[in-house]
């Protein structure tokens, strides 16, 4: 499809850097890449649901860890096959924005959970918080 859109344009001269950037971002996945992404997503969704519903792994801690791992992998799959993330589009600026966002998200999430967990541990009486009213 990309070839068709290029064929409509005069080859001589008219392409500057911005023009080609538009076509790079317009480079969408093919049918096979969508289907691969969909297939992977189905598997990566079905396994965590099955693990939690059947309790096949026994240990809750291990199940939680595996489920989170599957989520991380599935997010990467979606980024590549559905959102078409790569290091080339928009001269790498989408990737830069994504990396910056991931850093911010990691700081916000780990910071909040860490600080508030410490607060709970230090401020609460010895017994379990779920027993509190």
């Amino acid at each position, binding site marked *: *499809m990309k070839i068709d859109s290029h064929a409509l344009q005069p080859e001589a001269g008219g392409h500057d850097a911005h023009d080609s950037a538009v076509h790079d971002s*317009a480079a*969408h996945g093919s049918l096979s890449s*969508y289907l691969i*992404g969909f297939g992977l997503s189905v598997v990566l969704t079905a396994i965590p649901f099955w693990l939690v519903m059947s309790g096949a792994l026994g240990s809750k801690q291990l199940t939680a860890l595996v*489920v*989170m791992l599957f989520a991380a992998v599935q997010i990467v799959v*979606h980024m590549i096959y559905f959102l078409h993330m790569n290091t080339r589009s928009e001269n790498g600026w989408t990737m830069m924005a994504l990396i910056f966002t991931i850093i911010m998200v990691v700081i*916000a999430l780990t910071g909040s*959970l860490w600080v508030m967990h410490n607060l709970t541990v230090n401020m609460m009486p010895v017994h379990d918080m779920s027993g509190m009213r």
Partner: protein
Amino acid sequence: MTVAVVPSQDSEPIFHVIDEHAHPEGASTMLGFWVYLMSDCLIFAILFATFGVLSGNYAAGPAPRDLFDLPLVALNTSMLLLSSITYGFAMLTMERSRIGATQAWLAITGLFGLAFIGIELSEFAHMIHEGATPQRSAFLSSFFTLVGTHGLHVTFGLVWLVTLMVQVWRYGLIEANRRRLMCLSMFWHFLDVVWIGVFTFVYLLGMLR
């Protein structure tokens, strides 16, 4: 285009372009929309962090195990996943300039999105009917805020989808409409990515607590 003339030594004028050169219309839209999505990602990150902090504070009210119905969540997840792939098909047919097929795939995407919202609303209604309202506990407040914000995003995505279908119907697959459909494509797939976080951290890990 404005040019400044600077007289040089041998009185031959040198021309400097002082205006910015022309940008093709919409050249920066995709990058700008991506930056918007990243800021939206930060909103969800904060809501996830809030939920993570408060998810154990039941205030002697219902816990995830008492409320969540995993088969229903799995059904909901498949609705959103199917809508993602059908939107992908709409983009593929758009690139082949097949208006009828594009509209059909967009309509199917809309129906899957509608099914997702319908199932989510019925789940909320069921929970509220059982007394698990947002006011009941900190866990439920953060749950309804996080999942509700995602549902609201999907709802606005549906409004946008219908708007674009009308646009395509009236003006065809012109360059502007293709650009808009690509923005909505990114928005729609992004919401699916956020949903991965929701079903993992809220529902699956909630059932394991």
